[in-house]
């Protein structure tokens, strides 16, 4: 069951120094309004978990540009020169996680599992220091769950119970990050009454959602 709050109230739920998950892929499906509110609130020292850091001036990149992030787990920074500069200057710590395995590790936490054996990155720096399992001649490495204190995600529409539907490819990391933290805050374009979303169309059930913020509110 979700509570409707403002973007400012949402930002107050993110403590300085906390672990923050932010959804989206190259700013598509990113909670831009919540990011704006966070930047405005001046929250610092965040540990960020995201697919990429988007662009300098768009999506998650705004948190990087505002120097709100001190460390992160991301799969890619190639589209954001500010991230690359901060990384080079050692202002920003980065653990690179393969994109699909980032999703697996977050979902691993969300589904109450202790870890998974992944074939991804075997023989690469990603495998360093990780336990292995060999089965039928194939080697897998142990990947551990990733969780956050707060997850910020973006949906097209919610009902007041927190049931969510997305828009086309803006779905990307959203349904998975909804499982990644005890507090999931969803930026939505529209909030409707229960029953106005067909149960068949719900992608993220309300049990995963704590707060709803109308974009711009």
């Amino acid at each position: 069951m979700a509570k409707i709050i403002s973007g400012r109230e949402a930002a107050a739920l993110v403590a300085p120094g906390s672990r923050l998950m932010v959804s989206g892929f190259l700013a598509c499906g990113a909670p831009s309004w919540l990011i704006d509110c966070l930047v405005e609130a001046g929250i610092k020292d965040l540990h960020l978990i995201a697919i990429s850091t988007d662009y300098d001036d768009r999506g998650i990149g705004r948190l990087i540009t505002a120097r709100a992030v001190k460390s992160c787990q991301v799969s890619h920074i190639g589209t954001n020169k500010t991230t690359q500069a901060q990384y080079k200057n050692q202002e920003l710590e980065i653990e690179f996680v393969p994109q699909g395995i980032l999703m697996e590790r977050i979902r691993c936490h969300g589904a109450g599992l202790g870890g998974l054996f992944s074939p991804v990155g075997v023989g690469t720096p990603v495998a360093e220091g990780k336990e292995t399992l060999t089965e039928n001649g194939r080697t897998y490495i142990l990947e551990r769950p990733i969780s956050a204190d707060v997850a910020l995600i973006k949906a097209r529409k919610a009902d007041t119970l927190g049931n969510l539907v997305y828009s086309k490819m803006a779905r990307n990391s959203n349904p998975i990050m909804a499982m990644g933290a005890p507090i999931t805050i969803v930026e939505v374009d529209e909030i409707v009454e229960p029953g106005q979303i067909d149960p068949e169309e719900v992608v993220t059930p309300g049990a995963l959602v704590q707060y709803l913020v109308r974009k711009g509110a």
Partner: protein
Amino acid sequence: MLDRDAKRVLIGKRIAQELKDGDYVNLGIGLPVEVANHIPEGIRVFFQSENGILGAGPAPLPGQEDPDLINAGGGAITAIPGASYFDSFISFSLIRGGHINMTVLGALQVDAQGNIANWSIPGKLVPGIGGAMDLVVGARQVVAAMEHTDKDGNPKILEACTLPLTGAGVVTLIVTDMAVIRVTPAGLSLCEVASWTNVDDVVASTGARLLIDGPVGTFS
């Protein structure tokens, strides 16, 4: 002594009082479904069925059953406004991930460590595990709903379960036709006794030591 139906209502009603507004709840088949008939006024509770719904509603009117809407026992249900359907993989992710506030399950035995056995009597009955093992490790509160003794009057609440376990150290609350017992790190704490019986009878019908560390209430 109460008859079977009266016991069922007594247990269901008492467990329902544990629910809070907005809770997501999974009820096992059999006795636990009675809980749904006693939701306290003024609160909204959402029922999950592990085969793929959040927001299960009551049984439909006769003739209005939909074969694609059934609970975990195979009985016809409805969907409330605001329900959602999902596959079994997502359903159990919600359960194990701690997103379900309470599960209520029947039990063959429970014990002082919070162990529960409800899936197998070796050499006799082996219906199987179903979703129970996932539910007991995943739900935030695990309530055992059971008759206090078996049909021969033998205790089902023991120092240590003798049947194969469904889950180890998982039960948080035991509600029977005789008592409400909390599982604590120190052991089983007797909280309430049904108004038709008394503390001595409860103690005599229980196969484990019961701690009485405060006033014992009554329920009916």
